[in-house]
């Protein structure tokens, strides 16, 4: 895994032979139209351009219906944009691939496979031998804190555990980019906090590029290097906020940190503006 630790937001020190920060994902004038039932078309995304550097943790934040998930699906290669294009590592995205691993709010675990089977799936698909795939998967399951649950089926797990399995399943095939679509949105507050902490710990170990869709301001600020705030109908980028907070981050410390508080308040205001503009254009 080529991992280039980057300072969040500003990149000053060139390291490991990289003179410039490497663009992992480039979104280039992307627009997305959807046909709705009444024969009207709805502009979900309008002319979005965004560059995400290798190793950055970027959140997309916006009111529901702003097309933030659609943007993530376009990077995943699940949805082809109506106009513009997206690239990963300089190559145009034409479809899903194991270099970009999704984690969905709905978990989307295979119900017919147990925990081990789910986590092993991607490795087996990559042609890794059964024994090796199993050993790697067991290590990952342990890493996400589910040792002992290998033979459980998804239906026997709580929501938080299911999402841990889903994260392990995606990490298993070593994607360079994690695409997280409101991954903690369906979980209760306590479970969400724990998973946020665990995700940060995992991320700080190997610094994969993460594109994280959420509607929680607090979650976006806590996790990210950059927060992209979007408007809705049509979905556009309102503002990109660099979150310059030291890592590793501890939730308890951050809550008292005036910088953190200011980021949260500023972004809340931005979102308020977005909603206000909709009401009084």
């Amino acid at each position, binding site marked *: 895994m080529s991992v280039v630790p980057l300072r969040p937001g500003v990149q000053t020190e060139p390291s490991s032979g990289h003179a410039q920060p490497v663009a992992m994902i480039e979104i280039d004038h992307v627009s997305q139209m959807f046909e709705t039932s009444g024969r009207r078309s709805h502009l979900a995304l309008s002319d979005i351009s965004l560059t995400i550097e290798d190793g950055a943790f970027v959140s997309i934040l916006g009111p529901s219906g702003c097309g933030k998930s659609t943007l993530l699906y376009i990077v995943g290669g699940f949805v082809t944009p109506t106009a513009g294009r997206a690239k990963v590592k300089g190559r145009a995205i034409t479809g899903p691939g194991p270099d970009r691993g999704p984690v*969905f709010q709905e978990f989307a675990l*295979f119900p017919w496979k147990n925990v081990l089977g789910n986590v092993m799936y991607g490795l087996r698909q990559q042609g890794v031998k059964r024994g090796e795939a199993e050993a790697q998967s067991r290590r990952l399951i342990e890493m996400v804190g589910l040792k002992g649950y290998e033979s459980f089926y998804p239906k026997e797990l709580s929501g938080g555990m299911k999402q841990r399995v889903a994260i392990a399943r995606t990490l298993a095939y070593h994607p360079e980019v994690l695409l997280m679509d409101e991954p903690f949105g369906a979980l209760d507050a306590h479970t969400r906090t724990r998973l946020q902490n665990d995700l940060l710990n995992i991320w700080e170990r190997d610094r994969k590029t993460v594109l994280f869709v959420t509607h929680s301001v607090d979650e976006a600020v806590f996790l990210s290097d950059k927060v992209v705030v979007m408007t809705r109908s049509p979905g556009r980028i309102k503002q990109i906020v660099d979150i310059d907070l030291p890592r590793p981050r501890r939730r308890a410390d951050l809550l008292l940190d005036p910088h953190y508080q200011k980021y949260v308040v500023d972004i809340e205001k931005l979102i308020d503006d977005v909603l206000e503009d909709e009401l009084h254009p």
Partner: protein
Amino acid sequence: MNARVVSTDIVLGILPIALLVALWQALVTFGYAPVSLLPPPGLVFARLAQQLVSSGYLHDIAATLFRLFAGFGIAVILGVTIGLAAAVSPGINAVVRPVVRVLAPLPKVALYPAMLLLLGFDHASKITLVAADALFPILLSTYYGASMVEQKLIWSAMAAGTPRSQVLFKVVLPAALPSILTGCRIGLVISCIVVFLAEMITSSDGLGHVLVAAARTFQTVDMFVPLITISLLGLILNGLLHGLRTYLLRGFPEV
């Protein structure tokens, strides 16, 4: 659900069947129905026990089961294949949908004379009728199961490196399995019913034929025996399918 509730359920469930048999016995005992029209249950079950060890009757059961399994098997293979194909290919869908819309509500027994004329009075026509009747519930539940597969399950598999050509077998088929098995369950009961009817209409062996032969000679006891046999066969086959379903769907949430 605890053991006590289950056992109460079983008692409650056996009650109406016991009451029915008791009513049957009472009708005979108190002379409301002449024995020639309604033989007492004891006589019928004794005859059933006697028949179940006679080679002639076992041959009839075997003939019925052969036609049932052949027809049901064809229906499963065709139904699952066509249902999956219609769910994943818009081109096939455009042809299959209207054809199924027309053929599904058609009473297939009405086609039986045509099958007799084309395929003869032997196994082939009966197997075809069974397959034609069991096909549609299996086809339709496969189709709906496969169309309802959650998009994100497919996306997850594709992102993990599953080629498009394998998504059908690695994701769509297993994800549609609960629905497919529900269709199979309906198809199996239909197969029991239809094979019996086909044998009643024209046959020289099988359980349906036993009933018709008994009816011709007014052997009322022998009329009840094949009816009870087909009910028992249905229960056993349904139980086996249920076991298979429980095993195959062990990971799925209960419906």
